[in-house]
């Protein structure tokens, strides 16, 4: 919708392209897509100014299905294309879509550099802990021991934790959500979109074909209360089963380690529970690495740290130069020593 036309309320349909979707039945990608298509109209997004840009992988087909501008690039390089595009037109709202293979294996360096530069885009990493498109090889997030076509005896590589990698690279907005948890995923998208700088979102995604249940230990409905910690800034980090929060995270006294405590046990009260501070990078480092069975996984915004966006800085330098400096090419060519031949 062009902003020059009378504002019309857009709906999911306006964000849905006419392309046939080519994911396997039951793939977690469908849910993420649906949430995106439903969420964008609610925040007044303009399809003409919205761009989805991806690498290669099942997840990277996402742009085809959004009725916005879309760019299905090459394996691992989406952040670099996005950076060039954003520097060219900072008005665009750019979403980079990647997978655990695309973004962390071949594309790890571009991801890291986009994060440290803090280019104002949203990056969603669909983490299914497997290479889907190439039929099931293990990925940098696969756990040790995973048997896959390329690791028939079990993988040996120690996995990388996307959130920690992002934090180590200097990311300033780091969040995590789950493919099918639309109610959690939608606001995460919205907050990422509002953040000025690179917002990094890891979405736990199920690949029913090649790594079904990779996240069952997190999402298993029966235990979900104790396997997920829903972060809220300024709120104590409580979790527990369905009858209400009963457990919490506490900093071990005089140390730098977290422990799970149960309210009411051993005199523990809510005051002993650590309060989430999304501006605290050290806390984010601690939270980023937690995973069941010993800890719940931390979902929501792990870190939100305001910092100048790279594109803004680049544009400001160019604009300042344009105001002060030379703009006439004829002058440029004639600057310095010249002489006339008659």
């Amino acid at each position, binding site marked *: 919708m062009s902003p020059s036309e009378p504002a019309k309320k857009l709906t999911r349909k306006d964000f849905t392209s006419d392309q046939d979707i080519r994911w396997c039945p039951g793939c977690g990608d469908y849910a993420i897509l649906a949430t995106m298509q439903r969420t964008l109209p609610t925040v007044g997004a303009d399809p003409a100014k919205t761009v989805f840009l991806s690498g290669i992988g099942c997840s990277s087909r996402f742009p085809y299905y959004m009725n916005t501008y879309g760019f299905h690039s090459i394996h691992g390089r989406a952040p670099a294309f996005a950076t060039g595009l954003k520097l060219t037109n900072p*008005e665009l709202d750019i979403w980079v879509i990647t997978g655990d293979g695309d973004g962390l294996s071949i594309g790890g360096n571009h991801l890291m550099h986009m994060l440290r530069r803090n280019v104002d885009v949203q990056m969603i990493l669909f983490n299914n802990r497997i290479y889907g498109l190439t039929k099931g090889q293990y990925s940098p997030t696969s756990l040790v021991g995973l048997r896959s076509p390329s690791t028939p005896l079990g993988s040996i590589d120690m996995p990388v934790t996307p959130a920690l990698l992002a934090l180590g690279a200097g990311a300033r907005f780091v969040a995590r959500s789950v493919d099918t948890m639309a109610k959690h995923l939608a606001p995460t998208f919205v907050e990422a979109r509002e953040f000025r700088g690179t917002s990094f979102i890891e979405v736990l995604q199920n690949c029913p074909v090649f790594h079904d249940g990779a996240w069952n230990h997190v999402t298993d409905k029966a235990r979900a209360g104790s396997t997920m910690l829903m972060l809220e800034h300024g709120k104590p980090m409580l979790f527990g089963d369905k009858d209400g929060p009963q457990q919490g995270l506490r900093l071990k006294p005089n140390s730098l380690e977290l422990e799970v405590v149960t309210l009411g046990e051993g005199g523990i009260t809510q005051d002993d529970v650590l309060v989430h501070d999304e501006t605290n990078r050290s806390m984010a480092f601690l939270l980023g690495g937690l995973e069941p069975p010993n800890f719940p996984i931390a979902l929501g915004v792990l870190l939100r740290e305001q910092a100048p966006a790279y594109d803004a800085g680049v544009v400001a330098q160019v604009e300042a130069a344009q105001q002060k400096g030379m703009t006439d090419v004829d002058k440029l060519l004639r600057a310095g020593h010249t002489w006339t*031949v008659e």
Partner: protein
Amino acid sequence: MDTFTKSQTRETLESVVIRFAGDSGDGMQLTGSQFTHTTALMGNDLATFPDFPAEIRAPAGTTYGVSGFQIHFGSQDVRTPGDAPDVLVAMNPAALITNLADLKPGGMLIVNTGAYTKGNLKKAGYEQSPLEDGSLSAYRVINLDIQAMTIAAVESFGLGTKDALRSKNLWTLGLVLWLFGREYEPTVAYLEQKFAKKPAIAQANIAALKAGHAYGETAELPSGIGPYEVPKAKLSPGLYRNITGNDALAWGLVAASQLSGLKLVLGSYPITPASTVLHSLANLKSFGVTTFQAEDEIAAVCAAVGASWGGAMGVTTTSGPGVALKAEAIGLAVMLELPLIVVDVQRGGPSTGLPTKTEQSDLLQAAYGRNGDSPLCVIAAATPGDCFYMAIEAARIAVKYMTPVMLLTDGYLANGAEPWKIPAMADLPQFKAKFVTERTEGFHPYLREDETLARPWAIPGTPGLEHRIGGLEKNYDSGNISYDPDNHHKMTKTRAAKIAGIANSVPEQEIEVGEATGDLLVVGWGSTYGAITMAVRRAREAGKSVSQVHLRHIVPFARGLDTLLRGFKRVIVPEMNNGMLVKMLRSEFLVDAIGVNKIAGQPFKVAEIENAIDSALENL
């Protein structure tokens, strides 16, 4: 000119080649470029060739730390920095041992005797001093203790010896300026400006400069040694400046940005000898230029492609190893059919090779170095100043045909300089880029223009033209992904036809020197231009039936090349590689073209091409 014409009459020379050589710390590049500047102001035609050591700062006195600067100037058309120097300035033994072999027999050799210490002689590999063993008797040697004279000249400024010695290159410059009837004022002005904040240094340098000049004027130089005069050249009238290839390239890109109305976005990663294009453009932000030093070459080209999709003129600059890394992404740009300029400032290969030396060995990589049938346009600049025009030509083709264009230059063009007649922007044809903006139901991003086969350029942000592009094959009509066999065949043929069609917008291939038929045709491309031209001219002066064709457009070749090739009994193709253009010509035109190959990291000497011409004529 009254500073120096008093005492002696000057012998007139048509052209001279001088090489300044010394330690990297001796300031030879400054000496050379100031001499060049003054010479240009005096109206000579000229060409230069700086030759840096590979090391940043090699230990003083070593042979691999020698830095050289050669200038060729004259009253006639000068096209190359000269084969062999007439004058060699050797600031230390290392400079002497590495450069002496090039000096013409009987040439003038200026030696800074103060630097010929035991230690320096040993570092250079001399067993005994060449100044004493008679080994220099074939040359006209001027032994001068330049160091001592410099120290004396700057004494009054109270600098320490180390600082004082820094001015010895200016003393030398002063002397050489005098020898060839050049003024020192332009250098004085330069020094005053450069050291505006350090007046003591400026004054010491100026004193050394003047002292060297005065030494020539007053001292008795051995007989048979200068002074000389080199009259003005007959250059076409106009305003001139000196320009290096990399600056010309950067400025050409900025000009192209204005001629096309497109923002210039450069994605680049430093690499010798391309880095200075990035540096130049980073200084031109006032022209709306965005420069992005990416984390590597791949990100650099990807950022440029992203920029192009966003409606900018996306450019990436690099050298051979960088082009190799960019191959996959350039292939994507071929598939996306977006304008993109890839500049390859070639250097010696393979692999890391000879990073600071020049070569033309990326041609086949440029043409074929991608997976799949992945045609793009390849053009090449012939001289430093030509880099300006070829940058514009690259942009014109990229925008008109919606295609990546590979622009080849090399280390020799990049750092070499020539006097350049400054064009006026108003005289350069515009080629304004057109974005589609009309809202279209079901916009088809790959529906082509009949004439050029170019697809429309619809940039994100345009309401109603939302579409998706990518590296998978797409349907000829809708632009959607297509796995259809016949469609792929058609698209492959169409991509090839689009590139072939570029020849329609390029003038017919011209003969550069000579007639359109004859015994021998010399075909070149890129920076061999000057050497070939001189060699062909000399051969023609000697009555030989030789002509020259120089290619600026290589993929596709300009129309008419075929006829030209068939008009000669023999075709030779000098290249600074092991035979690349010659492969393409043989395959395309089935002519028995023969390569003349020099793979030494050094430009051709005119004489080398003359020899090749002669032996080709002998074997007709």
